[in-house]
């Protein structure tokens, strides 16, 4: 089962904070993270974000699940920096990535998608004057969040089918059906959106 980055109901102060405020903090931290240059700074930032998980009463297993997909890429980046720049630089780079992923996940775990969509639609309102449809941007955000578990589910099904047929180490046998099924899903979702009056 996959609960990656999906809303967990709650009544904590983080849950009650408006979606706009949370998104603004996330953007500010994202921009500010380029100034984090020392291990103590990164360590403190990670601890502050983890404190947010405690305040929001997010289970530890769910917290770990948010960063688990990073293991391979973080491992590769860390190994590169340890060899080239030393362990301190490796900690700073990987730590910043992990902190940002944890923060983004904390926002999605404590915010209803509709609240985020409303915030995005509000912020993007002025773009109407240059021909951008804020409602469509909001829908795009909602669909992106909704699609994460769908694509993960499709990948699991494809991997199972691959194993059942003994194709355990074939990237092509994994990628091709996953792309085809994802495109089919997108097609069917498009039909469903039209049927529900989205294009009207």
């Amino acid at each position: 089962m996959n609960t990656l980055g999906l809303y967990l109901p709650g009544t904590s102060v983080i849950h009650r904070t408006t979606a706009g405020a949370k998104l603004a903090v996330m953007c500010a931290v994202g921009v500010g993270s380029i100034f984090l240059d020392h291990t103590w700074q990164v360590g403190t930032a990670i601890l502050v974000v983890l404190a947010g998980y405690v305040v929001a009463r997010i289970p530890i297993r769910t917290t770990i699940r948010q960063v688990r997909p990073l293991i391979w890429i973080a491992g590769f980046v860390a190994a590169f920096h340890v060899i080239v720049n030393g362990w301190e630089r490796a900690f700073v780079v990987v730590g910043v990535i992990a902190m940002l992923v944890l923060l983004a996940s904390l926002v999605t775990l404590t915010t209803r998608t509709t609240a985020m969509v409303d915030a995005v639609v509000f912020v993007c309102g002025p773009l109407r004057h240059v021909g951008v449809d804020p409602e469509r941007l909001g829908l795009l955000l909602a669909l992106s969040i909704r699609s994460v578990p769908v694509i993960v589910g499709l990948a699991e099904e494809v991997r199972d089918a691959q194993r059942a047929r003994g194709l355990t180490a074939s990237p092509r046998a994994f990628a091709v059906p996953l792309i085809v099924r994802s495109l089919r899903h997108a097609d069917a979702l498009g039909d469903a959106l039209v049927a529900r009056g989205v294009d009207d």
Partner: protein
Amino acid sequence: MPVIEVDGVTHAYGEQSSRRVVLTDVNVRLVEQRIGIIGANGSGKSTFVRLINGLVNPESGSVRVDGLDTKKHGREVRKRVGFCFTDPDAQIVMPTVQEDIAFGLRRRGLSKEEIASRVSDALTTYGLDGHADHPAHLLSGGQKQLLALSSVLVTEPATLVLDEPTTLLDLRNAAKVADVVRQLSQQVLLVTHHLDLLDGFERVLVFNDTRLVYDGAPDDAIGYYQKLMA
């Protein structure tokens, strides 16, 4: 009941070299409350029902719902005709149950209070209360189909089109969905391979090889279909 008129409809997919005709000269007028649509795979029944809420526009001929041409008045037609697909995963748009039910209502500009009230009613009516904040993708197959159904029904369409809604479900969940369909006050067009779901229906259309080949009472139509498939 709404009046659905299909006049001289022929439809094909693809360009000239790969053109594949999927419906040939279909003429029918539907006024009954319960209408079943059966036929072999590839016989044209899914395309037929997609014409009815304007998901597909006919290559030739016309489709009208209460006098509204689906080509010219797609928006009004889609407000009257709800559509439920075979695979609920492909039609659940929002991440959580109550957000998905509210999705269609939000786009109709209803007040927050009205939306909350309708969503709460739908959750209770379709046995999804207690799942309001659950991620939609973690529901069982039957619950997903009930969610897809309730998300369409909450917008109160006059006609509901169901394209094989029980094909991916086990017997228990198929029975649950069938129960919900049986109790609907709307006009229902049901495409199915589960012939027992047509019990109590008033009219059944049989499609074969892109044509409407039989149109009549359920027992006669099912008998005709069974002989055709024998």
